[in-house]
């Protein structure tokens, strides 16, 4: 626009009658060229303002504070750096939820490699694990983020494409299906960490693949790389009811996440690195979930790996999961229909015993 004004001036000097009607002090600038340039400039400014307009809707805490902006990568933080970061997160949680969290940075235990095993003969697909996980790990309730997907699979196949995790039934298990819960497999050879352009996700010494939510740039490469669809992205600001926040949290696991970062199952590391069980295991009503230290030969997971028939999902892709599925030797009990009819109420009669006895 400025160029045009100067052009106008050049023109104006040549064509006298048009120039004479212009500003008295600047004979080169005519009224028309001035208005033309000014309108254009104003329009350009307005367009710029419009383009920057989304900034107006940013909430106060959306822009990082100086501390947050200068915060280092998790692995490069000194103890005092971590203390500062924890204090900042603690204040943020207090501000948003009105509770003081028991926030800490839980480090891996020596001589421990975690493994998880899940008994497919037992799982009934009741989704207790899914919702226990959501409650424990402060996942967003809306939009919904869940780490565990329970696939309802037709019996006789492990083709995951035939699985369905939207099943709605009055009662589970269904006689024609079995149930395959899938969550992060904490691979020993994780594709997700390799594709991260900023190394915001990595494998810890105890085998848990973690995410530094303050370092993640939200590119979602890891989500695409994961063959198990185990990573979740916060498309919107996570919504957690104030009274539903779990205040027992750690830096790498279940502290509240901002919008635009990835998250995933971390074997409840704030619990398991302190000796406790993962929340999904504690919620399982049929004891299908097993967790422990695979370096301990007497641990439950070691015994399962030794004595049970075990498989991993998508073994052929070479991810070496530490999440194992296993069976009991006998076929799971046939699921009987709801006890109705004349036989059911007469409990205890010698003749009423069903043939499916132990």
């Amino acid at each position, binding site marked *: 626009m400025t160029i045009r004004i100067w052009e106008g001036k050049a023109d104006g000097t040549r064509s006298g009658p048009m120039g004479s009607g212009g500003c008295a002090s600047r004979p080169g600038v005519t009224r028309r060229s001035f208005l033309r340039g000014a309108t254009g400039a104003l329009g350009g400014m307005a367009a710029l303002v*419009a383009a920057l307009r989304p900034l107006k809707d940013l909430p106060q805490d959306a822009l990082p504070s100086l501390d947050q902006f200068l915060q280092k990568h998790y692995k490069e933080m000194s103890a005092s750096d971590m203390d500062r970061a924890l204090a900042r997160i603690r204040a943020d949680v207090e501000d948003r939820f009105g509770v003081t969290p028991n926030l800490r940075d839980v480090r891996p235990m020596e001589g421990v490699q975690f493994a998880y095993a899940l008994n497919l003969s037992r799982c009934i697909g009741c989704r207790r694990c899914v919702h226990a996980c959501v409650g424990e790990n402060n996942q967003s309730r809306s939009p*919904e983020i869940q780490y565990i997907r329970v696939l309802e699979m037709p019996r006789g196949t492990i083709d995951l494409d*035939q699985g369905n995790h939207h099943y709605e039934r*009055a009662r589970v298990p269904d006689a024609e299906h079995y149930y395959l819960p899938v969550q992060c497999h904490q691979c020993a050879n994780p594709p997700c960490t390799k594709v991260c352009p900023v190394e915001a996700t990595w494998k810890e010494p105890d085998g848990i693949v973690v995410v530094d939510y303050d370092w993640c740039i939200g590119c979602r490469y890891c989500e695409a790389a994961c063959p198990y669809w185990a990573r979740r992205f916060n498309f919107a600001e996570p919504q957690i009811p104030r009274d539903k926040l779990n205040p027992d949290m750690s830096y790498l696991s279940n502290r509240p996440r901002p919008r635009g970062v990835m998250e995933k199952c971390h074997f409840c590391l704030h619990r398991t690195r302190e000796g406790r069980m993962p929340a999904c295991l504690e919620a399982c009503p*049929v004891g299908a979930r097993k967790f422990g230290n695979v370096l301990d030969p007497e641990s439950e997971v070691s*015994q399962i790996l030794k004595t049970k028939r075990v498989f991993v999902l998508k073994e052929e892709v070479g991810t070496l999961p530490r999440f194992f599925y296993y069976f009991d030797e006998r076929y799971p009990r046939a699921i009987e229909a709801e006890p109705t009819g004349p036989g059911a109420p007469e*409990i205890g009669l*010698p003749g009423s015993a069903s043939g499916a006895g132990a």
Partner: protein
Amino acid sequence: MDHTPKRADATGGSRLAWLIGPAFLGLAAWFVWMAPWPRIPLGATPAFDVGAIVPRPRLAVMTDPPQIDVGSYEHRCDDCHRLFKSSTEKTTGRVQHTEIVFNHGMNNRCSNCHDKEHREKLVLRDGSLISFPGAPLLCAQCHGTTFHDWERGTHGKTLGSWERDNPAFRRLTCVECHDPHSPAFAPIAPLPAPHTLRMGPQQAEVERREASPLAIPFEHHAEPGAAQDEVGTPGGAREGGEG
């Protein structure tokens, strides 16, 4: 000479510029005040009973001596059975304990597990008496493989800690999950299914490949050479699996 046409162009351009400026202004005003801000539509959070998630044993284990809740008072078995020597040969005609649902296969006689004389004890097949908390030994008489699995930790549920030397480590016993009179788990209602962002609750069949209008028929995946022989088999297996 060559300035005259340029002059005319500039005049035409200036008319356009008069339009462009207000147009930008109007657009900016529309952006700032009137344009709807794109919001991600969120489905309602499903409501469900959080009490359905129980990180505890399903059932309480019996103490030694066992306490039984009768009329909201705790009684010992012998409080009654000192006086009432009930017939135990058959399970018919129960007058008391009618609330017990009995569905344990062929194991349908009280005296298979309960001692006839000492009602606060359980009896093994060799006649020896054990206390109620020692029930896994009794169960092991029939469910040997499951008992060994339980001993190894490959069956059952462990709460508290995964560290075996941790004082909180506790492996639940048989009767903390299974009702000994009706040990099979009854089917239960599942908790709500996931909601997909933007779309809310999904039809159960939406993600089925067969149900999708964009689905590629399964046969197209088969290799051309093998198509003639092999197509029938996986297709048939699939139908069988779904049926």
